[in-house]
Each structure stands twice: as structure tokens, then as C-alpha cells.
């Protein structure tokens, strides 16, 4: 029972996070693409 609860919690968190990341995040809109333009230490 407990492992089902933990599993479904992880899955729910992953689904919410993925949806936010893919559809509601500007992480890769070109301004600060994390793969290509490394994060800066400076105060953006």
C-alpha cells in the first residue's frame, strides 16, 4: 500500500512538473537556454 502511495505521489509530481516545464516555462525561449547559454552568477 505504502509503495503505491509513494509511487503515485512521485508520478503526480512528475506530471505537474513536466506540464509546467514544457508549456508554462520560458526556460528555453532563447533568453537563457540552459543547455547553451549557461546560467550567470550575476544579478539578472
Amino acid at each position, binding site marked *: 500500500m505504502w*509503495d*503505491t502511495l*509513494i*509511487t*503515485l505521489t*512521485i*508520478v503526480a*509530481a*512528475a*506530471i505537474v*512538473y*513536466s506540464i509546467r*516545464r*514544457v508549456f508554462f516555462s520560458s*526556460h*528555453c*525561449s*532563447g*533568453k537563457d*537556454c*540552459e*543547455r*547553451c*547559454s*549557461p*546560467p*550567470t*552568477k*550575476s*544579478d*539578472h
Partner: protein
Amino acid sequence: MSHSTVAALVGAPNCGKTALFNRLTGSHQKVANYAGVTVERKEGSLTSPQGKRIQIVDLPGTYSLTPTSLDESITRRAVLGQLQEETPPELLVCVVDATNLRLHLRLVLELKRLGRPLVLALNMMDLARSHGILIDVPALSRELDLPVVETIAVDSGGAAGLVAFIDQNTPFAVPARTVPWKDPTPQELQSIQLRVRTILAATCDESKRDDHWNERIDRVVMHPLWGMLILALVLFLTFQAVFTWATIPMDLIKGVVGIAVNWVHQILPAGLLRSLLADGVLNGAGSVLMFLPQILILFAFILALEDSGYLPRAAFLLDRVMGTVGLSGRSFIPLLSSFACAIPGIMATRTIQNPRDRLTTILIAPLMTCSARLPVYALLISAFIPNRPVLGLFNLQGVVLFILYCAGIISAMGVALIMKQRARHRYQALMMELPAYRLPNLRNLVMGLVERGALFIMRTGTIILPITIVIWFLSAFPPPPPGLVGPAIRHSFAGMIGQVLGVFFSPIGFNWQICIALIPGMVAREVAVGALGTVYSLSGEGGNSVSEALAPVLAHSWSLPTALALLAWYVYAPQCVATLSAVRRETGSWRIPSLMLVYLFGLAYGAAFITYHVALAFTGA
């Protein structure tokens, strides 16, 4: 809140502005030994030894205040104080390459006319000295009637003089919001250039200048025939190294993931949590992580070539070839950037003056093989292409990888050619400053690789891992009906989606497992590898540790035509969502990204269809 001084770094391309910006602010913005790396303004800050807060703005390089491209117009507007919701700079720091004052002093004289507080940063003074160029700095300051400081941006204390100057002279007179500017007439330009020559004659002694070895190297490297052969050889060796050097570290990662999978099986009872951790997390995300060594080797070559000054030479070599398909050598740097990721490549097209050239380059940038495709290529090649030598020298897997990269490049040229036919394009000659050759800096190289590695791992953790967990969920639910014979995944949500999509993709040889992997591949291509790891792990076709042996599982489950068709698909496959949104941002509408999506999808489907059926005919499978 205390006032902070806003200082803008202005200068010609490749004079070291971004290196100076990084030195001042402790940032890690991308630098390279060629022009056009910075295409948007960047901001950072530092606190001076006297405790003053200084805001530093790094602007794209420009040779003058008369812009010829989008990135140059950003600089002009920032300098003139015309950017909305932005404080005009109180101090302009004009950065010049001390080895090339003849070209760079014109901008200094133009900036002087604005009347804003201005200081000249003589950058790369170490190189100037080593090349035998003697600059009388106090005399230069007198002639220009400007404060001049020496800087060596790549040296740890190389910006101290500039910081001290700002410290001593803050606060600067608050400038007007905007300053008027009129582009100089040809006569005015001539007089500016004459003034530059007079200043140089009085302040700079180049009689002992010795950088002839640059010319000697260029005689070979820029030769129309030898140069092209050297370029082909450099690229070829890069792809060979990706396969031959990565074996040991990849085996190591595979072994660690395999041990982790077995450990999970030992400590957890059979059930959902064990399946999630073993099939979803470890076999999914783990199978992507093992490609880290190959990505690092590819970037080691790219970073070394960037730092050496070779890349703009390659742009000149390819200018003629690119001209025949309607592109200029200016497209080379954006297209080269696209080998890392299409997004910075698409942004780098701002340096292209002609709007139609820019649009063409944006449209073909996704055909360059981005690093996210490498895990997919590497997986399929290691599964289906034998690891044996060719001509006793080369590795066959490396040769196939080289061919796949070439297929992307050739296709891009083909698309550009078609666009040229439609647009009656006029060739524009390439003008670009060639930087001096230098040995790649080992520290920069190591730092660059550490950053790339950290970003890849972060990406695996923050994008690939959550998506593979979602894929696992779709592949594990709903539970199979009681008494089912065969893999339960066929009855899961993912199995249903895969079988519906299979109707559309079966003509190109894709099975339902591949169809499942294609959807998350739209978020990030390498997720397709993780998705295949999870799907095959749940299918029970790979035993416990699919991550340890996904390639053999695929080799056993797929036919060669299917694998070749998938490789062909990935040469063209529509870009990830992030790239499409970057194109929308750069072009200002959804029309171009929609066109890109449709044409790439069409090409991918067509290429996979042809490849599949030709391979079927040859293999008789």
C-alpha cells in the same frame, strides 16, 4: 536603496567584451575566438573595492553606430538611450583589441561625439606586446582626450585598472535620457579614418610587429583545395573520436546504472515502486546519462576549434559553397552554433543583414545535428552498425555518424537552394574580421566542458527524468487484465497511444514502441532514448538492466530497415517545442515555426519512407 553606476561595454566584434564582462561580474557567458557570439545585451553587477555597486551591460559587437544588422541596432539603441524601460548607461566603456587599433578606433571617435562619459579599455595588451606592438598609452589618452586603461580580460587581475577607474570617478554626470545622433556622411567617415591614422602614427609603433606566422598558417588553411581537405579531416576526426574515445567511460556509466538497477531489485519487493525506480528512473534516465562522455568529446573539439580562431576561417572557406545555394558565409556561425543546440543558432542569425538570408538560415538551422540527437544516433549506431575498422584506419560506427551529420548539412543546403530559386537571391560577399590564431586555453576548455557536463546532467535530472517518469506511468497503467499472456505494456495507455500512432507510422517501419518514444522526443530529443529504455524494460524484453544493454535489445527487436528509417527520421525530425518557440520569438509570428514544423515533418516522413523501403529491397527482410 543605494545608487549603482550603469556601465555599458561597447566595442567591435571579438575584441573581448564578453570575456571582460565575465571577468568583472563573475559570469560565465559564452565567449569564443570569433565575431558575433553575443547577439543580445547581457547584464551583471559587481561591487568595487570601495564598496560601490556597478551594473555592467555587455552589448553585441559593432564597428560603428550605423547598424547593418539586428544585433548592431541593439547596441546603437542602448548607447543612445533609446531602449525602453532601461536606464541609459552613465559610463561607456569602449573595449578595443590592442592588436587591431586601426580598425577599432573609428568606433571610439564616434562614441566620443555622443558626449557621454567614456573610457577606453585597451584589451589584449598582453597579445599586443607579444606581437611586438608598442602602444604609448599616455600619448593615446592625450590624442583621444579620453581616459585609457589597459585590460587583459583573460587574466585574473586583468580588469583591476578599469574597476579602479570607475571607483575613483563615480558618480558620473547623469546623462540625458537620449542623445541625438546623425549618421556620419561619407566625407565625415573619411575624416574620421584620417584622424585614426594620425592618432596611430603618434601613439603606436608597429615596426617590430611579428605575427607573420598567422599568414603562414593561413596560406595552407585558407587554400581553396588544402583548406577544404583540412576542414573535412578535422570534422571527420571529431566524429571518429566521439565513438573511439568514449567506450571506456560509457562502459563505466553503464556498469554503475546496471549495479543500481540490481540493487533496487534486491532491496525492494516486486511492485509499483520497484518498477518505477528500476524501469522508469534508472533504465529511462540512466540510458540517456550514459551518452555524457560522447557529448563531452564532441564539445571538447568544438570548444578547442572555437578558441583557436579556426572557425571563422572555415566560414570563409565555405562562403563560396554556401553562395551557390544562396547563403553567405555569415550563415556559417549560426549554423555551427546549431550543432550544439538550434536555439542559440537561431538567435545568432541576428548578425545576418539580409532579412531573406536570415529567414533561410533560421529555417535550415534545425537540420544541423544538435547535441540532443547524438544519444539517439549513438544508440542506433551501436545497435546496428558493427564496430569494425574501415581501411584499417577508421571506425565504421564513426564513419556512419559522420555520414549522418553530413546528411543534415547537405539537406540544409538543398532546402536553401530551393528557397533561393523562389526568391531570386543575390549573393552578398562575406566580410568578417579574422582573429589571430592561438593555442586553446586549457583552463577555458576544462571550464567549458565542466559547464557542458553539469548542464547535461541537470537537463537529465530536470527534464528527462520527470518525462521518463510520466512515460513509465503511461506504460504501467492501467494494470493488465487478469490472465494476460504477453507484455502488459500493450494494454497500457502508452501501448494504446503507440498502437494508434502505429497505423500512421507503420508504412515507414516504425513499431508501436518507437511511436511511444516519438512523442516525448518533441520535448527533448534524447528523451526518446529514455522512453525506449522504459518501454523495453516494461516489455520484459531486456531483463532487469535494459540501460546496460538497450542497444542489443533493439538489435534483437528491430529489423535493420526499421533502424535505418528511424535514423533518417531523426536527421529531419521536427524540432523540439523550445526551438519552435524560439523561432516564433525571432520572427514575431507563428507562421514561420508552423512552416518549419510542416516541412521538417514532411522531410522526416519522406526520408524514413524511402530509407525503409530501399533497405527492405536490399535486405529482403
